[in-house]
């Protein structure tokens, strides 16, 4: 009397949240392989992966948070805040760069904890709470940098103690079969694996799914809802630190006005990857595929030699298409 579980393997595969984004990724990769043959070179693939990795790192944290039912609009500028902190602390206090790196980590986690705490304290939608944090961080980034350095960018720290070892960790370039691959791609993959593990294989992941799906039910079942949400925001903070450190050690100086607008790209990557805007469902691997789609499209437009004025339009259209494909696949499969 065992009617359980012997559905066809194909059916099982098709119900996974990543499927739509996978289809979308294949579509754009094939499309640009035809329209922009240059993209097929290993060097070009390295460029595409680099673009995807810097976006994808943040998309992991943002996707986990979205599955947990919340948004973080401050994620874009938080990356810059982290980088600015490490740079200015090291330069102004004249200490080893690693001290700045460590303080930046503490600050990034602190900002995440603040976002989470404000959310549980006020009960306001996370959209509003993090909009406030976004504006504050944007102002702080500009104002403190000007206060400390007198400029809109930090000083060059490339000749300070600890810089080369930190650079090796956060932004070196590895030789993979003659092609240069940025180590950010490895960080991205590591975050994706960690995020997937947490979501699918730990009790914390079960809590995240429950809290995003129905926070009241989760609470009634004994899940620590507040702690889970704060933890998720701190996860975004951790990703912001990694992304910020990469940016600092790759480009030596940090532009204080950076990061604005990127928070929406992270959300788009997560949604394209199958995360429901309302929470409770999604996939970290899907978000990684979403970031890949973004990289392919944004660089593909350049490789195809299209008029750059059309770039934003094409990007939006591609992303809309990928999302529609995602939803179509899901509804097909959900029909019994």
């Amino acid at each position: 009397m065992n009617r359980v579980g012997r559905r066809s393997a194909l059916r099982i595969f098709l119900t996974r949240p990543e499927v739509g984004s996978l289809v979308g990724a294949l579509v754009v990769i094939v499309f640009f392989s035809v329209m922009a043959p240059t993209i097929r070179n290993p060097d070009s693939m390295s460029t595409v992966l680099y673009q995807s990795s810097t976006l994808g790192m943040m998309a992991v944290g943002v996707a986990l948070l979205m599955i947990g039912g919340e948004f973080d609009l401050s994620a874009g500028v938080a990356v810059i805040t982290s980088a600015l902190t490490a740079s200015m602390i090291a330069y102004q206090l004249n200490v080893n760069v690693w001290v700045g790196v460590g303080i930046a980590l503490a600050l990034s986690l602190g900002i995440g904890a603040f976002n989470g705490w404000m959310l549980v304290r006020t009960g306001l939608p996370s959209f509003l709470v993090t909009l406030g944090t976004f504006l504050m961080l944007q102002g702080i980034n500009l104002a403190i940098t000007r206060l400390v350095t007198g400029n809109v960018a930090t000083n060059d720290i490339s000749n300070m103690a600890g810089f080369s070892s930190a650079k090796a960790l956060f932004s070196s370039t590895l030789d993979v079969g003659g092609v240069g691959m940025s180590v950010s791609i490895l960080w991205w993959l590591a975050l994706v694996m960690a995020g997937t593990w947490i979501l699918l294989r730990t009790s914390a992941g079960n809590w995240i799914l429950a809290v995003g799906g129905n926070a009241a039910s989760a609470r009634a079942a004994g899940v620590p809802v507040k702690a889970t949400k704060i933890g998720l925001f701190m996860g975004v903070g951790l990703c912001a630190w990694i992304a910020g450190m990469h940016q600092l050690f790759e480009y030596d100086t940090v532009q204080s006005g950076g990061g604005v607008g990127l928070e929406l790209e992270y959300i788009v990557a997560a949604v394209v990857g199958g995360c429901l805007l309302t929470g409770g469902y999604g996939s970290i691997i899907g978000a990684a595929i979403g970031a890949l789609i973004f990289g392919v499209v944004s660089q593909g437009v350049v490789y195809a030699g299209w008029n750059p004025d059309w770039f934003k339009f094409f990007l939006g259209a591609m992303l809309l298409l990928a999302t529609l494909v995602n939803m179509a696949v899901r509804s097909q499969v959900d029909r019994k």
Partner: protein
Amino acid sequence: MKCAIVRAPGRLVALVLGTVLLLSACSSTGGARSAETAGRSFPRLRIAMITHQAPGDTFWDIVRHGAEAAAANDNVDLIYSNDQYVSGQAVLIQNAIDQRVDGIAVTLPVPDALGGEVRAAERAGIPVVAFNAGFDAWKRLGIPMYIGQDETLAGRAAGERLSREGARHVLCVIQAQGQVQLDARCKGLQEGLTSGRSERLYVNGADMPSVRATITAKLQEDPSIDYVLALGAPIAMTAIVAVKAAHSKAKIVTFDTNGQVVRAIEDGSIEWAIDQQPYLQGYEVIDALWLLITNGNVLGAGRTILTGPSFVDARNVRAVAKYAARGTR
């Protein structure tokens, strides 16, 4: 009233604080300080500088440093404000008029849109001096002086030099869409470039990794590009990384200098930088306004007072290096 609840020491503190605040408020206005200039004392002037700086644009940092230096020397209270959108800039000019400043230094990215505000300032008796943008319009708006040069001029100068160097295909990298000064530079480049063609590449200046990836991709896609022209120092530095990643032989030239760019010119990663001497622009416009207000002097005899363009390249970089390191070149 809750006065009764405040205990005596609290009230004393409040009184002391209040007195301190009152005294400090008194001392900041009303011409208390005076400058020692040629044995005569001059009143402290309030001058508003209103530019079209977009957030994070390093060029304007240097303009501001120059303006602050002049303000310190001339005993001027400098009020700096900026808005990248011309409608916002117009409002800022109106604010300055409402605050009854002694003089206004303004950029004219879209001269006709700001013409109304400029005339309103003149009617209110506030002298206006223009700088940096509005090269061909300042005179007809009735402005007595214009300092600096146009971005279009600078672009043309870049194009002409590149032509002398035999450039075939120049990539003009624009880091923010919709900004007049950046567009003007690329347009000028196109006008001045006679030895080949130029092409624009839009990148997202708010996302440095994306800037690098996009430039790399473009160089990989089109190996005929032999020059990359950046429109700002940070973009030039990223272009160095991108060119290396693309294994390209393209040379890098840029607008505007900073400490890093100067070092890059010294070691050859950047060929040259076109220097509009933003520090000089900022300094001169404040100083010229001061002379106009205190002594009715007009500099320039009705013609543009040029501050550039000048080129910083391997030949003269050493002279500039120490100024660039401290953020004023």
